[in-house]
């Protein structure tokens, strides 16, 4: 039986759409290079995460319903953000009239790196990226979606982004002192607890800097936006790229 090619719906978080279109483009191009059939359903809005994490999950019915309508017919939904994927899976309010759509979407939605390793079964990618790269583990991707083993747990270590990046020619994967400490972004936490948020960000940057990292990468632009905001303000030379940008650039 010949299987027709699966349709992938590209889910682009609102702040990526608005502030980091290059990350969305890289995600799209990367998936296309790997032979996927991808489309971006127009009319996407924010998934509602900032609202829900601030304690207003009950006000996100409308945006959740809208999301499910847009994406329900796809075979897979892929997003360059662990955080937003986790939100869709765990914090959409239960919609009694859309139970079917909700469970279908939950089974088919993937963060980009896990889609590559778990669905496309990419073992390693061929390409070159001769830089010292430090990886910032987004907490929602790490402990929510289990994109890597967390340092607290006694399990066999793994890291899906590392699996994809480490074999790129010339790429030097830098081991940090605190491999998966939070950067302090935390959505509205970044403004309600500004002092702590910034201190946490500075401490993460310090870890990268002291290991001579050239490029900080990660799977969530929200963390990277926060870290870059501090780095830029302090005149640091660190550069920031989403994993999708590195992969797309390396294999072209």
């Amino acid at each position, binding site marked *: 039986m010949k299987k027709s090619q699966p349709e992938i719906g590209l889910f682009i978080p609102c702040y990526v759409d608005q502030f980091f*279109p290059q990350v969305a483009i890289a995600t799209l191009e990367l998936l296309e290079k790997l032979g996927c059939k991808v489309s971006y359903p127009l009319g996407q*809005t924010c998934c509602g995460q900032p609202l829900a994490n601030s304690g207003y999950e009950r006000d996100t019915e409308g945006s959740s319903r809208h999301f499910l309508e847009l994406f329900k017919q796809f075979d897979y939904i892929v997003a360059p953000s662990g955080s937003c994927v986790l939100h869709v899976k765990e914090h959409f309010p239960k919609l009694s009239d859309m139970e079917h759509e909700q469970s279908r979407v939950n089974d088919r939605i993937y963060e980009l790196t896990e889609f590559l390793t778990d669905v496309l079964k990419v073992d390693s990618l061929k390409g070159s990226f001769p830089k010292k790269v430090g990886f910032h583990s987004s*907490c929602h991707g790490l402990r929510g979606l289990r994109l890597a083993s967390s340092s607290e747990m006694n399990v066999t270590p793994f890291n899906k982004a590392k699996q994809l990046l480490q074999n790129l020619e010339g790429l030097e994967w830098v081991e940090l002192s605190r491999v998966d400490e*939070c950067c302090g972004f*935390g959505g509205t936490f970044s403004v309600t607890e500004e002092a702590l948020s910034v201190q946490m960000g500075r401490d993460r940057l310090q870890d990268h800097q002291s290991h001579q990292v050239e490029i900080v990468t990660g799977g969530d632009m929200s963390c990277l936006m926060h870290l870059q905001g*501090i780095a830029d303000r302090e005149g640091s030379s660190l550069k920031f790229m989403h994993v999708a940008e590195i992969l797309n650039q390396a294999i072209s």
Partner: protein
Amino acid sequence: MSHPKAASQFLKDQANSLWHDETLWMVREKRDAISKTIPEWEELRNLASQIKDKVLSNLDVYLENFEANAQKNGIKVHWAKDAEEHNQIVLGILQEKNCQAIVKSKSILTEECHLNPYLEKNGVEVVDTDLGERIVQFLQQPPSHIVMPAIHLKKRDISALFHEKLQTEKGNEDPSYLTNAARLHLREKFLGSKVAITGVNFGVAETGEFVVCTNEGNADMGVHLADVHIACMGIEKIIPRRKDLGVFLRLLARSATGQPITNYNSHFRSPAKGKEIHLVLVDNGRSLQLAREKFRNSLKCIRCGACMNTCPIYRRSGGYSYGSTVPGPIGSILSPGLDMKKYSTLPFASTLCGSCSDVCPVKINIHEQLYEWRQEITKHHGEFGKGLSMKLASGIFKSPLAYKISGSTMRKAIKLLPKGLIYNPLNVWGKNRDLPEAPKESFQEWYKKNRG
């Protein structure tokens, strides 16, 4: 004081907050190292969590068994519905024994009930015999951490304090010297006390015995020298069988300090001849928490403190920033259950990073409960006026058109305005951080042009 305020004050002394962060991180690293020497670590966590599940689902039955067995062993059992009743019961026993000075080993429960000030008000001298607790007691401070009560203090602070209180040499910061001075001081108190109060780590339903874990042996010293032992125990501290201790004791010290086992795990089963043991079983909001389905498993906590050591917020804001008896992640899900209004900022003092849940030896889903408390708190207290602006935002999220307009307006504004102005409306973000450079078009616009 709200958590953000207290935290920014703590952070003002950069050197101190860095030191605090690193000190606690070291404890977390010790815990990591030793937990990884136990191949069945995750299995142990599962077991512990399941045993506690069973206890919480049958708490009434276990408590009655425990009471009956304890009474058979000659222990006098008292029930306290709240802190006030607990304090009255303890005072009642002291008055009956004509006792005006007691020694007490570490017990978070008696802190929760504010027993010390209550007894002092009633003319009883209370001496905390855990070294860290004695230190904060001298300073008239509460503990800043549930396992290491004086972790916020440095050697030189303690040296100065002991110089003042115990007449140690000025400027001598040698830990053994200072500890020895504390020992001599405490020995006097131990010898003079007819009643000793302890907490309880585990109550074994099957046997009616209870277990107290200390590193300094101060609980044992107090109890053995006194005629009367009063043990104060939260009703959630029950475990079904003695053999379950094998699971919990292996987890407790490793999670708490990275030690293989707590130095003294003392079993108290029945009073020695001529002596008495009183056990006060305290509810104080626990039954209520048990009834809250989303929050009930916070009662599994064995008070190891690991969630504090791992918490990037706690490490950088200190225990006092929480303003609650139990600080840190677990405190932030327990305290709102006691007083939602007073502790309304605590569940927001988190990035929901989830490190606490992964470190917790009894697998409490702490960060998920923080999220759930937020949903509750905003229903009742409209959290810092976030309500209105979030309502507006929700309107934006729902309608693609409105979202697009507001998004591109924002991008344009960022492009056109001088730095000083941009950071005005967004000034909290911009105080110490730049905003990303605004791109010339959104992805959506790019997509329509290039793939449309």
